[in-house]
C-alpha cells in the first residue's frame, strides 16, 4: 500500500478520496488553488499545498505544479478524481516517469479509451456490439440504401464534418432515405464545404446504462452491476440509479458480461465504467470511462463495496479482493446531482451559500464539500452536492428521495433541485418511461 497519496482534485471527490485513504491508513496531501484556501479538502487532508491561482489551467490542470507538489511532499501516488487530469495521458506518463503511481489505468489504456476509434476497435475485438453504420462516407443514394438495409431503419444521416446536432437527418424507410440523402449531402457541402455523409442506426429512445467494472494487474476483472443514467440534460447527467430499473434480465446479463469481457480482453486494470445505449432488447457500446465516476456511490450502496478504496488497492498492485460471486446487489439506490445552476435555464449560479442544510437519517447519504458560508467558485464545475438515497426497492428509494430533496436547503445561490424535485415527482419517472432525450424536451414544458 502507498504511504502518501496526493489528491489532484477538489470538492466532494477530493474529500471522498481523503476518507478512503484514512480508512486504508494512508496519509493524504490536498492541493488547492488560491480560491480554495478554506475548502474542506484542504482542512481534512493531512497536508495541503497551494499550487496556483484560481483558474483551473493555472492550478488543478497545471501538470508541473501538481507533480511538484507530489515531489515536495513525498507522495508516492496521485489520485486524479474525475475531470481535471483524470484522463490526461501526458499527466499519467509524467507521473510514471517521476516514479509516482497514477491511481487509474495505464497510460496505454487512457490512450485506447480516450480515442473514439481505438475504443471502438477494442470493443469490436471483445465482441461488444457497436451501433451499426457505414464504415465510412457513402457516395450516393444507392449506396446509402444498401448500407441502410444492412443497418436497419430508422437510420441517421450525418454530415461527416458536421457537429452539434447540425447536418443530421433521420430516415425511417428507403423512400425517405433517398429523399433525404441529397438534401443532407447538399447541405453538408454548403455548410461544411464537404458533402460526405455517414449512415448510422438511429435509436429513438435509448437508455444510458453503464456497467461498473474493476480489474487487477493480473488479468482478473469483475463487474459490480450497472447504473441507469438516462436522465440527462445536454449530456449532463442529473440523476443516476442502481440497478437499472426495468431492464430485461437477458440484456442486463449480456451487458455485464460484455463489459467484463472488454476489460479482460484489453488488460484494463483499475475501476472504470463501460457505457452502453440500450433500446428494447438491444444494446450498443458507447465508451469506456477509465476512472471513478461521479455516480459511483449508487453502486457502493447496493453492492456494499467501497469503490474508491478498491481503486487505490488495485493501483497499489493488490489482487482483486472479490470474486464475481461475492458481488451481490441488495436494494435500490438513486443519486441526484445538485448543481449551482438555474433550475430551468441551467445558467451557472456561483456565489456564496448563505444557508445550507443537508438531510440525514436512515438511507440518506450526502457527498458534498460545501457548508454554510462556502463559496461556489466560478472557476470550476458547478456541482454543489450529491444526494444519494437507498431503499429496499425502487419505490422505497423514491419515497425516501422525495423527503430528502424537500429537506435539502441551499440558499444564496440557485440550484437544480427545484427541477429535480419535479422530475422525480413526474409519473414518467416512477414508470421508467424515459430515455436519454426525455429531459431536454421535458424541461421546456416545465418551470416555475
Amino acid at each position: 500500500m502507498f504511504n502518501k497519496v496526493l489528491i489532484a482534485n477538489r470538492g466532494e471527490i477530493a474529500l471522498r478520496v481523503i476518507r478512503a485513504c484514512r480508512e486504508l491508513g494512508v496519509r493524504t496531501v490536498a492541493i488547492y488553488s488560491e480560491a480554495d484556501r478554506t475548502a474542506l479538502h484542504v482542512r481534512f487532508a493531512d497536508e495541503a499545498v497551494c499550487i496556483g491561482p484560481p483558474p483551473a489551467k493555472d492550478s488543478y490542470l497545471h501538470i508541473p505544479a501538481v507533480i511538484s507538489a507530489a515531489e515536495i511532499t513525498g507522495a508516492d501516488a496521485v489520485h486524479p478524481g474525475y475531470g481535471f487530469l483524470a484522463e490526461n495521458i501526458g499527466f499519467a506518463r509524467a507521473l510514471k516517469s517521476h516514479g509516482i503511481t497514477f491511481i487509474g489505468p495505464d497510460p496505454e489504456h487512457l490512450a485506447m479509451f480516450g480515442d473514439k476509434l481505438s475504443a471502438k476497435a477494442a470493443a469490436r475485438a471483445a465482441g461488444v456490439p457497436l451501433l451499426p453504420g457505414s464504415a465510412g462516407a457513402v457516395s450516393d443514394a444507392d449506396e446509402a440504401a444498401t448500407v441502410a438495409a444492412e443497418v436497419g431503419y430508422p437510420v441517421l444521416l450525418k454530415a461527416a464534418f458536421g457537429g452539434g446536432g447540425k447536418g443530421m437527418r433521420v430516415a425511417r424507410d428507403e423512400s425517405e432515405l433517398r429523399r433525404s440523402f441529397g438534401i443532407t449531402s447538399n447541405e453538408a457541402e454548403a455548410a461544411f464545404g464537404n458533402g460526405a455523409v455517414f449512415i448510422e442506426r438511429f435509436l429513438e429512445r435509448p437508455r444510458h446504462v453503464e456497467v461498473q467494472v474493476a480489474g487487477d494487474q493480473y488479468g482478473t476483472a469483475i463487474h459490480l452491476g450497472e447504473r441507469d443514467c438516462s436522465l440527462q440534460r445536454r449530456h449532463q447527467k442529473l440523476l443516476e440509479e442502481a440497478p437499472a430499473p426495468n431492464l430485461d434480465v437477458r440484456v442486463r446479463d449480456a451487458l455485464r458480461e460484455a463489459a467484463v469481457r472488454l476489460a479482460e480482453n484489453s488488460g484494463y486494470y483499475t475501476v472504470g465504467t463501460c457505457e452502453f445505449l440500450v433500446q428494447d432488447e438491444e444494446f450498443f457500446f458507447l465508451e469506456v470511462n477509465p476512472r471513478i465516476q461521479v455516480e459511483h456511490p449508487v453502486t457502493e450502496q447496493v453492492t456494499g463495496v467501497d469503490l474508491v478504496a478498491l481503486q487505490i488497492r488495485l493501483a497499489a498492485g493488490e489482487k482483486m479482493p472479490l470474486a464475481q460471486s461475492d458481488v451481490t446487489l441488495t436494494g435500490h439506490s438513486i443519486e441526484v446531482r445538485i448543481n449551482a445552476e438555474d433550475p430551468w435555464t441551467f445558467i451557472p449560479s456561483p456565489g456564496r451559500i448563505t444557508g445550507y442544510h443537508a438531510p440525514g437519517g436512515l438511507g440518506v447519504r450526502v457527498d458534498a464539500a460545501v457548508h454554510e458560508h462556502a463559496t461556489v467558485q466560478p472557476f470550476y464545475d458547478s456541482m454543489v452536492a450529491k444526494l444519494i438515497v437507498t431503499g429496499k426497492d425502487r419505490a422505497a428509494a423514491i419515497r425516501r428521495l422525495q423527503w430528502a430533496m424537500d429537506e435539502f436547503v441551499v440558499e444564496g445561490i440557485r440550484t437544480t433541485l427545484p427541477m429535480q424535485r419535479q422530475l422525480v415527482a413526474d409519473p414518467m419517472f416512477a414508470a421508467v418511461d424515459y430515455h436519454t432525450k426525455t429531459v431536454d424536451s421535458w424541461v421546456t414544458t416545465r418551470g416555475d
Partner: protein
Amino acid sequence: MSLSDSLPQIAELIALMRENDVSRIDYEDEQVNVSVRFGGEVVMTQAVAPAGAAPTAVADTGGAPATEGAGNIVKSPMVGTFYRSPDPSAPPFASPGDRIEKGQVLCIIEAMKLMNEIESEVSGVIAEVLVDNGQAVQFGQPMFRIEAG
C-alpha cells in the same frame, strides 16, 4: 477598495456592534472577506487575489509564517524547492542587508527537475529571507521582504 481602506469603517462598525450587542458581521466585496464576531475577535481575514494579477504577485498563503514590518513581499510563483544559491558551494544570491536591483536574481526554485531563477520585481534592500535553503515552497508563499532604500 482593499482591506486597509475598509479598516476605519470596520472599526466604526465594531464600536457600534459593541453598543448593540451585535454578535457577528460578515463583510464581503470582490477583494476582501472579513468576519467579525461579538467581542471584536477577528475570526478570519482573507484577501483574494484580484482577477488578472500578474503570476508573480500573489496573496499570502495560509500556512506561511507571519511577516513583520513593512516592505515588498516577494512570493513564490510556483510550487517547488527553494535554493538561495546556484550551487551548494556558491554564495547566496541575496542576503539580509544586500541592496538589490529590479530584475536581479533572488533565488532558484526547482520544480520538475528544472531550476527556475526568480528575479526581483522591485529595487531595495533585503530585510528578511523568509524561507530556509532547500525548503519546499508553495505557490504564493512569501520568500523575501524587501524594503525601499
